[in-house]
Each structure stands twice: as C-alpha cells, then as structure tokens.
C-alpha cells in the first residue's frame, strides 16, 4: 500500500486523473462565470472567449440587482436550505441512533417504514401536500418548504446514518454508560462526532436538490416575499426572449453559497476521516 503510494508513476497517474476530472467538472462553472461578464452579442459570438475590453459588461448583474428583490430570494433559499439540513441531520441522526442502538419490538419494521420514502418520490403527493399546507395556513411561508424538504430528506438520511451508527464501537457507548453519561450525551458527544463523514455526505446529497428545486417553491411558496433564488431567477427566462446576461449572472451568484456550504461540509468530512478512531 505505502509502496504503491510512493511510486512516482502511480502518483502521477492518480494526479493526472484527478486533475482531468476537476477540469471537466469545473468547465461549465467556468463558462457560466466568464459569460456572465460578457455582452449578449459576445456570449453568442464566441461563448468560450474570455471577456475583454470590448465585451466586458456588468449589465447582467445590474439587471439582477434591479429586478426583483434578489437578496431576499437569496436569503430565502439560504434559510430553507440550512434549516432543512439542520432538521434532516438532527432528526435523521436521532432516528438512526434509535434504530441502530436499541432492541425493541418492530425495530426492523420501523426501519423499513422509514426507508420507504427512498423509493417513493415525494412529488407524487404534491396535491395532498398542497391541501395540507392550505388547511394549516402554511402556504406562502418558508416553513412549508422546510417541512416538505425535511420529509423528503429524512428517509435516505436515516438509512445511511443508521448503517454508519451500527459501526460505532459498542464498547465506546458502553464505557460512556458505565461512566454515567446519559443517552443524549452518548449520542451527541460520542456517536455524532464519529459519524461526521456520513453526516457530511447526507448534507451534501440533500443540499443541491433543495437549492435547485423549482417545483415546491412554485407550488407552495410563489409569493414575492417567499420566492427562492431558483424561482426568482425564472423571471429572466421568458417564453420568447431570455435575458441571458441576467440568467448567467444570477446563476453565478447562486453557485457561491452552495460552494461555501460544500467547503464547510467537506472539511468536516476530512476531519472525520482523520480524527482518532476508537482503537
């Protein structure tokens, strides 16, 4: 293993593959970014060219800032995503811990029931959800989105996390019990830090679809003050004309927060992997 790692040829090949992959993955982002700074003509004339003195313009960003309340949309998206991730991780981890740790009647059934949601897309229930939201008066509030996304994210979270929690050493939990730690302390202080990589994975998996979702914001919270970024950006995409400058600028700005969140989680991921395990 260590021999293979130090072989310069292998190491070169690995890096080449990784760099190639990085380039491919970053290329669309790069194209969006450079074109967001170009005039409409320049975008269509040569989409891959860098902005120069002639073609450089901030018009897209200006349009975005002027039209609609872009920062409010931004804030809405952020609130919905972060709150959802918080609830998914908290409740998902708690349910997973209960399923993995305690023997009780119906444990298996409960686990299957909670995992069922992985196979049934939540959008099937849109009409019923809308009716529920209307009758509870949650339509056009961010809570409507947070609740729906939490429900959507929980099954996979429970499924992945319970698998990881089963792997946490029983001895460690038992040592905690003998030392007088409560089950909550054992969960929050001993188990959660050890499944941090899995938590980060779940967070990343959940984050992107929520951030990008158009369906539920359009149906449950289309009001001006609860619009999310994706929904807000739609004004620039018309049936006949699309304001590409504005769309690309909006997209460029929408990438940023996701990237910041991702960096936070991936650092957790790495820290989780390298932190001292049980033995």
């Amino acid at each position, binding site marked *: 293993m260590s021999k293979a790692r130090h072989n310069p040829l292998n190491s070169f090949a690995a890096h080449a593959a990784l760099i190639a992959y990085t380039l491919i993955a970053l290329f669309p982002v790069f194209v969006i970014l450079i074109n967001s700074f170009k005039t409409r003509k320049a975008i269509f004339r040569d989409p891959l060219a860098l902005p120069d003195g002639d073609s450089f313009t901030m018009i897209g960003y200006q349009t975005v800032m002027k039209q609609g309340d872009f920062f409010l949309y931004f804030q809405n998206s952020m609130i919905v995503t972060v709150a959802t991730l918080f609830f998914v991780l908290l409740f998902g981890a708690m349910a997973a811990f209960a399923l993995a740790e305690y023997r009780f009647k119906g444990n298996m059934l409960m686990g299957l029931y909670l995992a069922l949601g992985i196979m049934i897309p939540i959008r099937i229930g849109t009409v019923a959800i809308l009716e529920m939201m209307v009758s509870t008066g949650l339509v056009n509030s961010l809570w409507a989105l947070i609740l729906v996304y939490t429900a959507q994210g929980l099954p996979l979270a429970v499924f992945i996390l319970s698998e990881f929690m089963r792997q946490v050493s029983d*001895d460690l939990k038992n*040592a905690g019990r*003998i*030392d*007088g730690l409560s089950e909550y302390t054992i969960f929050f202080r001993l188990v959660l830090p050890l499944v941090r990589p899995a938590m980060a994975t779940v967070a990343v998996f959940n984050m992107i679809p929520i951030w990008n979702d158009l369906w539920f914001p359009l149906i449950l919270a289309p009001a001006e003050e609860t619009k999310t970024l994706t929904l807000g950006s739609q004004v620039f995409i018309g049936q006949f004309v699309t304001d590409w400058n504005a769309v690309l600028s909006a997209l460029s700005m929408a990438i940023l927060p996701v990237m910041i969140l991702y960096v936070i989680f991936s650092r957790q991921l790495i820290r989780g992997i390298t*932190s*001292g395990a*049980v033995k």
Partner: protein
Amino acid sequence: MTALKLSNVCKSFGKVEVLKNIDLTVEEGEFVVFVGPSGCGKSTLLRVISGLEETTSGDIDIGGRSVNDVPPAKRGIAMVFQSYALYPHLTVRENMALALKQERKPKDEIAERVAEASRMLSLADYLDRRPSELSGGQRQRVAIGRAVVREPELFLFDEPLSNLDAALRMNTRLEIARLHRQLGASMIYVTHDQIEAMTLADKIVVLRDGRVEQVGSPMEIYNNPANRFVAEFIGSPSMNFVPATMLGGPEGQFVGIRPEYAQVNANGRLKGKVVHVENLGGDTNILVDIGDDLTFTSRMFGQYNAQVDQEIALDFDEGKCLIFDKDGQRI
C-alpha cells in the same frame, strides 16, 4: 463480605438462552477469572453484572446491595474493554476524569485521583494527549486508569490484553497483578489466555454454553478437573485422552494424561510413530500417533532430539492419571 453474588442468573436474547442459572460468589479482594470457549457467554455475563444488559431472571448483589434495578454508573463497578473504548475527543486526563465529573466530585479531589492513578500507571507524561496519539499499550493503561480513578468495589475486565503484542501483554499482566495487590479490590477478568488465567486468578470459573462447569483455584482446576471438558480446556498443550481398553482397562472409560506426565521410555506402554516435533527451547512437544487415529502429545522438559517417523515408546505416571466415563464425568 462478598463483593459479588449472582443467584440463578439467566439471560436470553429472544429464544436463545445465553446464560443458564449462573450461581457465583466473588469474595472481597478476590481476583476471579472467567475462561471458556468463544461464544460461551463470558462477555454477556460481564455485561449483565455491569448492568449494560438486564437479566432475564435472577439476582445480582454487589457489595451486599441488590443492584437489579440500578443503572451501570451507580453499581460501584468499573469496566475495561478489549478495544480500550477511550473517548477520542478527550485528552487522557479528561478521559480519566469524566466519570468523576459525572458524579459531581469536587475539582481538587478529581485532580488528586487522576494524578494518583496516572502515577500508578506511569501515565503522567501523557495526560494532555489524545488517545490517537498513544500506542496500544498506553491506551490500555489509560483505560485501566479510567477504571482505577473511580475506586470501584468491583473491577470488570473483558479480555483487556488481547489486542497487545506478547511482550506488552506480559508487562501489562504484571501491572494488573500489582494493581490488584496495591488496591486490594475485587476483580473479574475475562480471558482466552491460559497463562493469564493461571497466573492472575485466585479463582477460575470455567464456563461452557452459558453454564458454570467448575469453580476453583488454578491448581485445583488443573489437578482435579470436574470433567473432561475442563480437563481439556485448561492446560497447554491440552490433556490426552486414551480409551482405557488400550491400556487394559474396562470398556467405556477414558484415561486422561497430561502431556508432561508422559515421558519417553523404552519400555513404555504407549507405542507409536512420531508425527511432529515442536522444539520450544525450554520444552519439546512430541506428537505421537498411537493408533486408532489418536495423536498423543508428550511434553519433554529441555531439548529432546526426536525425528519424525521415528518409532517411540512413552510411559506415564499412573498416579497422575485421571479417569473419565464415556459422558466425560470424572470417576
């Protein structure tokens, strides 16, 4: 006073009975070792004593107090696990102090007890390190230290040395023996290792399939095993069993001969061909095929020159033989 008294303890997981009517007493200051084959319920018994598992039926008294409904932290026990089970996010000092903090002991008392334990286990230099920055042996000492600071009435060890290499195992074994003398505390110790069992124990408890097969001092168990299972399990290499008919005895009986009581002797009663020789330096184990598909082990003291396929004759001391009936009970 008795440190621990188990009466009629049973434990089932669903339909599987893992512990069956265990009766056992541990006197104060006694070092008791549980041995038995893998899966016989040693760890389960330990977990039941510690309160991590509930009994299905039966009573547990620790220090004269019934603890059936007492949570693990309040039973006056401390446990050392095979996998160390140190808290990865805490330093050595915090690892040892945690239980005392939970009991809301005063700060200076905690500091004092941690200092005392770390001095006893030579951990003073590592107090501010994390478990991941320690070697295996050091980690196990921290785990032992974490038990020591609690000053429990009863220590529980579950195969604490099996993750360590041979040299370290010996050192830590001596350390545990010394600790037992110093603290005078009652200890229960689970192991697979014959040497640990024989050298540490005041009393050995041999378990099989969730039942106690025999309880006794190491020498009692070695010299006077209750049945064939115990005789075979204790002692390494294990006891030889020869059908009595081979030696002119009655049908249906077996003669148990420990390898060290069977020596090469030209006029020996057991004849056969050497199939394997193990030269250990201090001893030599000679495995002899004595017919009927039986391989007989003889342990010669010192170095003995035997060749594979050589014809050899062995003799044994009749006074040291044990006779078992066909169900494995001693006669």
